[in-house]
């Protein structure tokens, strides 16, 4: 291994360790790590500034930014609250029905829109409905986070790791609908049934005031019906375009960004306010990680990795996929799944270079990164959000409470995903 390879790997690994330790903000670590990588590259001659720029996956960033703008426009209209209130009313205040309705609405929204925004806006309404009913909101909040994490795996735009994987492996929106959605649907239903069982005691407490829920008025939650309608039309068109983007030879990023452009033109919002709701720190963090991984690739770490992985290529690919599901899930349960996904991409490409059929491995990575986050209270941002919001209620979600529901869900979802993965393995494109 060359000095460049050693130093670039060291930069990346130390940055990862700092990100995982959560001592310093991950975006700050990312920027510093990327700067160090380019600095080393310039000094030792293995990585130039223009190479660094080339290694940023603008397809991922564009897709994220476009979707973030659409969400940012939809957020103040009250649409998310409308959906939650509507679900609450439709449940007629029956706890099990409420769990299914709220879980389904949260999942459906987070399959196409940002998971965290969805949870941030739906969780307070959930708490309100539960308090009106005089029941504890804990099971509903936990279920919303677990089900939306699970559902997000189904689509290309459902979860940031999917966007990264899709872009790195050249997987289209339709690929996700064909290879991920059916598996996720099965896993989602099993998760719901498992939650129903795990929370049977809380859900059996009869609500005190079911009439009050029937008096909820969803239309009054929708503050800006006109704008919501416009954004939903654009969003619908964007989803249709995602289906046919491949045939039109346009990228998902182009679809998302042009949809955002049209929506902005149509709505004419206060641009400053709209852009303030974009999570720039996430986008910068992604770019910084890409620059770091690009530096390692330029330094020849990938080639060294191929030699190491050549031995692994004798392992049956299906077994390797199972390893990836469980390994990545285990890591995602304790640390952020975005750096894990970005770090796994060169590894999988390395395996490909070593002669393994890597097509099916991308799906293993998506399942592991998506389902792993359910395991612990810190496993995903959605989990942290509901736990923080629940501190405002009489029954705050504790780590123990989470582990008793989330861990069985994680283990079950990963097991079911593993079985389905093995069963459909021959069908995955190579």
């Amino acid at each position, binding site marked *: 291994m060359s000095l460049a390879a050693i130093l670039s790997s060291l930069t990346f690994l130390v940055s990862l360790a700092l990100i995982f330790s959560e001592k310093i903000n991950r975006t700050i670590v990312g920027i510093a790590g990327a700067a160090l990588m380019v600095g080393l590259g310039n000094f030792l001659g293995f990585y130039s500034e223009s190479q660094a720029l080339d290694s940023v996956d603008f397809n991922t960033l564009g897709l994220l930014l476009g979707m973030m703008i659409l969400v940012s426009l939809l957020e103040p209209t009250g649409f998310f*609250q409308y959906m939650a*209130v509507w679900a609450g009313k439709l449940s007629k205040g029956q706890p099990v029905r409420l769990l299914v309705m709220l879980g389904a609405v949260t999942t459906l929204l987070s399959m196409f829109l940002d998971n965290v925004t969805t949870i941030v806006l739906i969780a*307070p*309404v959930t*708490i*309100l409905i539960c*308090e*009106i*009913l*005089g029941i504890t909101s804990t099971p509903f909040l936990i279920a919303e986070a677990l089900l939306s994490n699970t559902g997000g795996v189904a689509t290309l735009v459902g979860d940031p790791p999917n966007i990264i994987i899709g872009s790195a492996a050249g997987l289209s929106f339709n690929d996700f609908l064909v290879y991920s959605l059916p598996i996720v649907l099965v896993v989602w239903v099993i998760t719901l049934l498992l939650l129903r069982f795990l929370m049977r005691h809380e859900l059996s407490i009869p*609500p*005190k*005031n079911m*009439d*009050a*829920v029937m*008096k*909820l*008025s*969803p*239309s*009054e*939650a929708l*503050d800006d019906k006109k704008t919501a309608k416009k954004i939903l039309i654009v969003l619908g068109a964007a989803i249709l375009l995602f289906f046919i983007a491949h045939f039109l030879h346009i990228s998902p990023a182009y679809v998302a960004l042009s949809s955002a452009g049209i929506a902005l033109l149509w709505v004419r919002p206060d641009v400053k306010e709209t852009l303030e709701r974009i999570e720039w720190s996430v986008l910068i963090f992604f770019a910084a990680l890409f620059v770091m991984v690009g530096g390692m690739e330029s330094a020849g770490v990938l080639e060294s990795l191929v030699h190491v992985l050549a031995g692994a290529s004798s392992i049956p690919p299906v077994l390797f996929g199972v390893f990836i599901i469980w390994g990545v899930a285990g890591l995602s349960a304790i640390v952020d799944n975005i750096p894990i996904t970005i770090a796994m991409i060169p590894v999988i490409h390395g395996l490909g270079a070593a002669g393994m059929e890597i097509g099916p491995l991308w799906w293993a990575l998506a399942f592991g990164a998506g389902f792993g986050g359910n395991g612990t209270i810190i496993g995903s941002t959605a989990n942290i959000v509901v736990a923080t*919001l629940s501190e*405002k*209620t*009489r029954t705050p979600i504790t780590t123990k409470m989470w582990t008793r529901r989330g861990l069985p869900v994680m283990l079950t979802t990963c097991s079911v995903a593993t079985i389905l993965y093995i069963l459909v393995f021959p069908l995955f494109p190579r």
Partner: protein
Amino acid sequence: MNIEKFMKRNVISIPITSTIGDAAAVFIKERVSLLPILDAQGKPVGVVRLSNLVSMEMPDFLKLMEDFDFVHDFGAIESMQPTIEMLSRSVKTIMQPIDTIDKDCGLMRVYAIMLKDEIFDLPVTNDNGELVGIVSRVDIGTGILTTWCTE
């Protein structure tokens, strides 16, 4: 025109030994919105507001909501009640620091302070720092109007 003329001289207060339940009973009986808390020597050491008591049962998460126009019936939230244990806790557990105003302060100045600091009732002290009265926004506001009408 200063506040001395418009303040209520009969200040209703509670001793520091009171419980939250005792404070609630005084609020109900006297229909006031703020009670100064006095120590054994009769010196004011803090206040308790009607809103402090109500918020004990007003759920925190309501602050998370931007609005709740769509909720026409608060359901079970309407019947939330503190436990007997909560009511028997010392008033010290919810006591707030006392803000006072000097009796010679001008009406406009007090009103401005009340608006700025979102105060509705303010105990009044004399030069020795002793509690001599209490004013509300209504007392001060109507005091200001009185000066218009007499001129």
